[in-house]
């Protein structure tokens, strides 16, 4: 997909875009319901479900006990029997509490049953550091789920993607994990009023360029665009690609780009070691080895839990400066 999909004029915040997607999807299909902690009366701690209770009532907007395994199991059982649940797990860190349900049950049921089950289950959660929430409320764990056959994983980079990918996820007949980013919720952008899908599995070239390819996900897309501007000053024309869907990954678009630019870097918020950037980098060098003028670089968080102190967290979270510096390092290094 290219920049050709011109977004509409109306500006909307990321949080409102997610909420609008939920509301339109629930209007469209009676089988869609949402369940999670404080999603009903309170409208979720992040505000993504605000207003849904008033329009759809408590049967379709379900407050749950603090029982993540129970919530995820409820979603699976409901999906396997004909409903289209949206299960909200407040913070991505809490997926550890219901990991078995997500990985051993939701992801594998269809296959274990020889294909019989149809599981239109959407799991919505919130990732990311930078909000002074420390080690258990700030993680980006997308790499775990991309390693699990049976799941699809999307990670929106802005309001337009947040709505379009959520719609595609809920319309999909498979389990889809939608990872939103808490520090992007206030971001505003043009978002079409109507219901629209951003197709799963298609990367988006956010900024075309000729000298270098940056593959960035989630909040790092915006940081990479900033980095591209900085580098433009050095006369470097950087292409920025947002895969949008991490599983399945659009290898073709990314490799095609690197074959043109001959250099690449992956940027994500997650810990660098074992992050999804490793898979992207491995694939790029496998598919474009003869085109590469330099090693594929990776920018991610250092190997540490997320610290609380603002001073340390600032040091922890990747940003435009670090991305630009890594691009320069790679170029300097190249033979």
């Amino acid at each position, binding site marked *: 997909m290219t920049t050709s999909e011109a977004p509409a004029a109306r500006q909307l915040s990321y949080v409102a875009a997610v909420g609008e997607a939920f509301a339109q999807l629930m209007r469209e299909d009676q089988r869609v319901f949402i369940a999670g902690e404080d999603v009903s009366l309170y409208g979720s701690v992040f505000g993504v479900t605000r207003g849904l209770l008033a329009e759809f009532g408590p049967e379709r907007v379900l407050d749950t006990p603090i029982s993540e395994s129970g919530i995820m199991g409820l979603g699976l059982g409901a999906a*396997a029997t004909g409903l289209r649940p949206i299960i909200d797990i407040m913070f991505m860190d809490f997926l550890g509490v219901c990991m078995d349900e997500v990985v051993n049950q939701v992801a594998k049921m269809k296959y274990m*049953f*020889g294909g019989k089950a149809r*599981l239109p289950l959407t799991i919505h959660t919130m990732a990311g550091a930078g909000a002074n929430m420390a080690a258990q409320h700030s993680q980006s764990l997308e790499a775990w789920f991309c390693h699990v056959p049976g799941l699809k994983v999307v990670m929106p980079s802005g309001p337009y993607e947040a709505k379009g990918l959520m719609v595609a996820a809920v319309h999909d*007949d498979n389990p889809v994990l939608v990872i939103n980013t808490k520090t992007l919720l206030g971001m505003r952008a043009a978002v079409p009023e109507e219901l629209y899908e951003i197709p799963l599995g298609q990367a988006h070239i956010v900024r075309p360029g000729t000298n270098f390819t940056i593959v960035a996900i989630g909040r790092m897309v915006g940081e990479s665009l900033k980095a591209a501007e900085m580098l433009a000053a050095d006369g470097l024309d950087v292409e920025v690609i947002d895969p949008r869907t991490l599983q399945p990954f659009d290898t073709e678009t990314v490799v095609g780009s690197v074959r043109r630019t001959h250099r690449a870097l992956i940027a994500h918020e997650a810990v660098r070691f074992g992050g999804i950037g490793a898979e992207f980098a491995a694939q790029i060098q496998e598919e474009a080895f003869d085109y590469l003028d330099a090693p594929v670089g990776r920018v991610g968080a250092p190997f540490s839990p997320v610290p609380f102190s603002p001073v340390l967290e600032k040091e922890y979270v990747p940003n435009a400066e670090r991305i630009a510096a890594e691009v320069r390092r790679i170029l300097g290094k190249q033979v």
Partner: protein
Amino acid sequence: MIFDDSPTGGYRSRTITSPGSDARSGEVGCVDINRETLLDIHRRMVRIRVFEEEAGKLMESGKIPGALHLYVGEEAVAAGVMVNLSDQDKITSTHRGHGHLVAKGGDLKKMYAELFGRATGYCKGKGGSMHISDLDLGMLGANGIVGAGPVIAIGAAFSDKYRHTDNVTCCFFGDGASNEGTFHEAANMAALYKLPVVFVCENNGFGEFTRQERHQAVHDIADRAAGYGMPGVVVDGMDAVAVYEAAAEAIARARRGAGPTLLECKTYRYFDHVGVRGMGVVYREDSEVLEWRKRDPIALMEAALAEQGILSAEQATAFRDSTLAEVREAITFAEESPFPSPDALLEDIYTLAGSET
């Protein structure tokens, strides 16, 4: 000590009512049982017994790959509960799931083909014994993860409540599984939302090789029901009629929207945790096994049916023989079925847009 009040004396179905629950007491005289129902229960038990004994032999002789957890000895539970259900009612199962699917009306051919890993099996050979399932019959799968069932069961029950049907979901789980957090979360949510669920605890006295008294400090798992605000019932799991009656009441309660029940069935696993060997094991005395076998659920039922002139010993034997023939036929079908083709490996992982499944 397991023999303190072992089923050898026989349990009277006992209801542990909980604050706010509208459960009626254990007297179930209200439920009337016609002879057809009794015969139906008997047939389901015999089908399970024969299916499992033959499967066990095939596993021990190495013909069936992997491990089988056999249900022999516990037939009264699956049969007594399942005779109350329609194909629209759902069940969640366990690693010991053959008995549940047979009792729910599973196709023996497809079941054996699955155990053999053949393309004609319920799961095209991809699941095997531990993942055998039939969504058309509302059987949401055997499961390799202990405690996985309860949380899936509340989802199925929620689904029926959401669509205003009067279907119920019966969740089978073991005494060992009752210590997994998932049981706790599911029980609380089921009671909170008054979901049409019956939690059927198959208390066979052991979690793998650990005796109940060494994995929990309570004797009756049904005592946990009060902590969720649902009734708990203890029933003799070797007495199929007692199970039927207690299950009928709990299921009726669920159907009328009055919420879940925890039904604990005291039963026993004749064979080893895996496979057929049951005697001479380190974790229990042979005498204990023999004690329990004295109250074999099928023998008890056949004695009662004969006494009431409903089924003669000859008729019982005849049915067992015809079942054995049916099972042998299923085994032949399975053995003659093709293995899946290697490229099937990458099929059935995702539902493709516009596809039927």
